[in-house]
């Protein structure tokens, strides 16, 4: 594990508040790069705004996280959650804000945590999304990517990514009962759920960053 200086905190090892903020910047960059693709995916089954909400939401979250990066991990997560919520609303706002609040709680009011504990943040985010959206696996929502990723947390980053991707792919064969897509019934079959697709991007960006630390 690497050691480095964090302003005001002296020597801090492990996954720091500044690292957490950087993780959220990586997510924002990934979502910005896939913004139009997510909108097109959403246009097939919904209203075509999902890429905007995700890109704008995480851009705001990353900015707020940077401003809070001198504090605790929980402070970064909560600041990001609040900013994301107020930037977008939509469905993504409450779902990802709640995910980040749960991650903040799991990380706790400390300046850093062991890097080996970061998979627990994915599990906490998944729990937050389930709590707010009241969806279960198999209902053709972002939970179909988040829940398998959370379940694969003990197996490490690569396993989490693979589980998320497989879960998202499986939504092609699902009929939705939650969210706007639920009014589509069988017409959504064959198309990946946009919320699951963006969840894979979020999980990818987070775990790739953690792997690089």
């Amino acid at each position, binding site marked *: 594990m690497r050691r480095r200086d964090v302003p005001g905190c002296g020597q801090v090892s492990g996954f720091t508040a500044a690292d957490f903020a950087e993780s959220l910047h990586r997510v924002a960059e990934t979502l910005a790069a896939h913004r139009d693709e997510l909108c097109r995916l959403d246009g097939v089954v919904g209203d075509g*705004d999902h890429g905007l909400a995700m890109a704008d939401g995480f851009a705001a979250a990353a900015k707020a996280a940077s401003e809070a990066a001198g504090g605790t991990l929980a402070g970064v997560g909560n600041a990001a959650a609040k900013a994301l919520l107020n930037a977008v*609303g939509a469905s993504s706002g409450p779902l990802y804000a709640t995910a980040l609040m749960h991650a903040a709680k799991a990380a706790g009011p400390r300046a850093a945590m062991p890097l080996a504990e970061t998979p627990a943040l994915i599990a906490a985010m998944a729990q937050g999304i389930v709590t707010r959206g009241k969806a279960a696996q198999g209902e053709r929502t972002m939970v179909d990517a988040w829940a398998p990723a959370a379940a694969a947390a003990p197996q490490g980053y690569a396993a989490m990514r693979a589980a998320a991707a497989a879960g998202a792919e499986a939504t092609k064969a699902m009929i939705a009962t939650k969210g*706007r897509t639920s009014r589509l019934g069988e017409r959504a079959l064959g198309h990946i759920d946009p919320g699951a697709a963006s969840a894979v991007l979020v999980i990818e960006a987070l775990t790739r960053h953690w792997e690089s630390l």
Partner: protein
Amino acid sequence: MSEHLTQKLINAGADVVDEMLEGVIAAHGDKLHRPSPRSVVARHGPRSGKVALVIGGGSGHEPSFLGFVGKGLADAAAIGNVFAAPPPQPAIDAAVTVNGGAGVLFIYGNYAGDVMNFDMASEMLSLDGVEARTVLTTDDIASAPRSERERRRGVAGNVFVFKAAGAAADRMAPLAEVERIARHANARTYTLGVALSACSLPQTRRPNFEILPGEMEIGMGIHGEPGMRRETLRPADAVVDEIMDAIFFEMDAKPGDSVAVLVNSLGATPLMELYILHRRVAQRVAAAGLKLHSSLVGNYCTSLEMAGASITLMHLDDELQALLEHPCDGAMFQVAGK
């Protein structure tokens, strides 16, 4: 999908909502003000002891929702991004500004995002001791079967629900009574639309779905959600007949009953076509032995520049009829006193 960018009279795509709101306040500052960036409040109407009626939803549906803020209508609206539910904060700002101590009623269309954000607003308000209740509108008969009415989405028929609840609140009915009336109004309101062309988000300027020449989509949602079925575009009378058959089947009215009608443009369809549609609606209402109490024809709940229209019928009773006749003075919707 078409690769060309749609033409819009906008500045930066990211600024459309805020610039629209600046324009609305510049034009209607006598009736509306903007206590926070994404909330719009009636200058006349909110008062002590009156139930505060707060509506809201995504932008891109104008005059929904801010045009229905005014005396005798909603007291305030929370404004979201284009086609996106507003976050909790604007709803909280709106509710706190218009709270008259008699409770807050949120009325908005039944969409997952709106429900999550308004529910968070309600939770935060309750921590401050403000009671907020919620009524979801579910008038779009295309969006779920009749047996699952509570899953349907709210569309143009919203305006009748806002009107009835706003009148009840203006008459100083208590919170439980305004809530009952809103539910009653929603239960008797039925909408079905037809889309002829796509709309495009200002941020992407690309059509968000495709309708081929010669096609129409029955039951398409006001955000472009796919509807019940694609069909060959037919003459107006045939389209109205299909819509009215579906609405009459749901409504179960008896000869002699009264209805209020709304023929709404989805954005691009002109008044000429709306009145051609209304002509046939009136013929069908008369042929069913029903009385046409009143009609609204125009832009009430749009979907940016989508072409197409929706038809709404509200099945009136004496209570709802009186509430529709109560005067109101919104920026974009008025009923004169008699």
